């Protein structure tokens, strides 16, 4: 009997506690008012079984379910459940348990709306241990669940914003220890998981030489609220350095106290590379401009300074030099314009029928002056019956001119230059070979790059635009171009193919 008595106690105790609490709270501070209003605990005693009914309910139960006390007492408890069969399973679990069991359940109110409740039950047993009835507390947690869901969604949204940012975003505490970061941060530094990053000092990701500046900027950020576009050398997981630009600002709490930093970093390797290319380009173009201008200026000033009687003697030679160097300047200008067109995607080919043999012979005529000036031998092996191909004959002759003038330029006096063409399979092969300085194996591909390198072997003389344009033109014709050489001093072969329709 003692056991039974003990089991009866909780309900009345509980009601007392709730009443007491409510009164106390109502009397207490303003800030508790909403809490009291929102914490509405339904209290009940119910019978087991699928047709089990409520034995007792408190007023909060009426409010939670929308049913009156009388209605509640005369209905099956399971009818409150959205899935009535669920009650049997819950009761079984409680019967098997020693103490109270708390479950989240879906109830349907009288007006049909679904609510989520937190339901805590105790089983009251008779002498044999059989469950006589249940005592329980029900709290409507629909709003709380909704708020939790909203918070989860909001966090998810923030996460998505962080992860879809093209820049690395990192949040640190005021000491610079990382609290949060996005995927780009991990990618940028070569880490696969956040666990490897969070909790570590941001300084571990900055090159040692920049630590002093980073510390100063941390102070500056705190004082001024933010810093913008500061260049640092950052480190990847495997110790590789890369240049980055960082902007940071202070995050403050509601009362304006700084609590953390947020930093946005951007890998500027590519921008640095472009800057460097730009400066290489300017250096090379300046040199390429100055050389012909030197010849022209020398000629012009000489012709001006000598007596008109002597003029005739030097005039022919000098005018020839002036003309040749003007051509050279014009070609440089055209190459630069072509380059711009290619970069802007505006480089277009004419579609006409090209007689390859004719095109080759015309291009050869243009470089004959250069070749004969250096006493070089020219061998031509071009069959008459090459099939016509669709393409742009001016652009193709530009390629041939480039290859031939390079061959002449990089071949010593009295060397030999050969132009061959043949059809094989469904392609025309055109080959320009020379007995000149040759190309190192590792540079065979690189010679077609734009501005290949400053620390160059001699064959990178020039701006480094011509072969790049050749590659572009041949590829636009659906062909291929490549270079072959046995090595430095052993001559080179430039070959391109064009598909026969």
């Amino acid at each position, binding site marked *: 009997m003692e056991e039974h008595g003990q089991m009866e106690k909780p309900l009345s105790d509980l009601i007392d506690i709730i009443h007491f609490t409510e009164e106390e709270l109502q009397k207490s501070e303003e800030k508790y008012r909403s809490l009291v209003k929102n914490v509405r605990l339904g209290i009940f005693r119910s019978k087991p079984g699928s047709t089990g009914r409520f034995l007792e309910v408190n007023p909060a139960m009426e409010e939670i379910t929308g049913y009156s006390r009388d209605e509640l007492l005369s209905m099956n408890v399971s009818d409150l459940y959205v899935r009535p069969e669920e009650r049997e399973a819950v009761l079984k679990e409680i019967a098997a348990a020693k103490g109270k069991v708390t479950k989240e359940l879906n109830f349907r109110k009288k007006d049909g709306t679904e609510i989520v409740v937190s339901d805590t039950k105790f089983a009251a047993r008779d002498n044999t241990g059989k469950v006589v009835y249940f005592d329980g507390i029900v709290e409507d947690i629909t709003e709380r669940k909704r708020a939790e869901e909203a918070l989860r969604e909001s966090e998810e949204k923030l996460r998505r914003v962080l992860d879809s940012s093209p820049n690395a975003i990192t949040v640190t505490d005021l000491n610079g220890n990382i609290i949060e970061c996005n995927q780009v941060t991990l990618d940028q530094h070569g880490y696969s998981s956040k666990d490897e990053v969070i909790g570590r000092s941001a300084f571990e990701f900055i090159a040692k030489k920049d630590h002093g500046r980073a510390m100063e900027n941390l102070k500056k950020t705190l004082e001024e609220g933010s810093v913008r576009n500061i260049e640092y050398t950052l480190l990847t997981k495997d110790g590789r350095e890369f240049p980055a630009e960082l902007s940071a600002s202070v995050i403050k709490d509601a009362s304006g106290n700084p609590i953390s930093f947020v930093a946005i970093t951007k890998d500027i390797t590519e921008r640095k590379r472009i800057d460097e290319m730009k400066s290489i380009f300017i250096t090379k173009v300046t*040199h390429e401009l100055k050389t*012909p201008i030197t*010849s022209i200026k020398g000629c012009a000033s000489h012709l001006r300074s000598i007596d008109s009687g002597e003029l005739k003697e*030097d005039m022919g030679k000098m005018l020839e030099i002036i003309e040749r160097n003007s051509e050279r300047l014009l070609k440089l200008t055209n190459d630069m314009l072509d380059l711009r067109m290619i970069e802007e995607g505006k480089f277009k080919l004419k579609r006409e029928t090209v007689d390859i043999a004719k095109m080759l012979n015309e291009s050869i005529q243009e470089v004959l002056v250069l070749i004969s000036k250096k006493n070089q031998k020219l061998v031509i092996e071009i069959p008459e019956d090459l099939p016509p191909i669709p393409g742009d004959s001016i652009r193709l002759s530009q390629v041939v001119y480039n290859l031939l003038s390079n061959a002449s330029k990089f071949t010593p006096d009295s060397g030999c230059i050969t132009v061959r063409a043949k059809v094989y399979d469904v392609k025309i092969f055109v080959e320009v070979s020379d007995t000149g300085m040759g190309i190192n194996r590792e540079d065979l591909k690189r010679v077609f790059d734009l501005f290949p390198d400053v620390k160059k072997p001699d064959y990178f003389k020039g701006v480094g635009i011509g072969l790049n344009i050749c590659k572009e033109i041949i590829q636009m014709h659906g062909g291929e171009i490549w270079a072959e050489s046995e090595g430095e001093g052993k001559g080179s072969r430039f070959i391109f193919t064009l598909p026969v329709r």
Partner: protein
Amino acid sequence: MAKILVVDDEPDILEVARIILEKKGYEVITAKDGNEALEKVSASKPDLIILDIIMPRKSGLEVCKILKSDPETASIPILMFTVLGRNRDREQGLKAGADDYLVKPFSAEELVNIIKKHLATP
């Protein structure tokens, strides 16, 4: 008549310099790279050398150092071609022992005047 060696890897610049200087009565020899320049110096013993800096095989700076450290050739005046706006070239040239420099592009008068300045008897 004084003998002048002009060294540059641009054939047209060599030709222009040759025409201008021959007209003034100088004997002109030319070389297309650093190694050829050294060969021509020992073979022809020029009275003055004009050297371009950027050249294949051996740069003008290297050639200048070699010639200035050899007692046989140290007294031959060396003029370096430098490119306008590149002060570093000028400094490096003077450091390598060059006697003077001539900025490219140059006029016929500038070329002749600087040579006269460094040759006691033209």
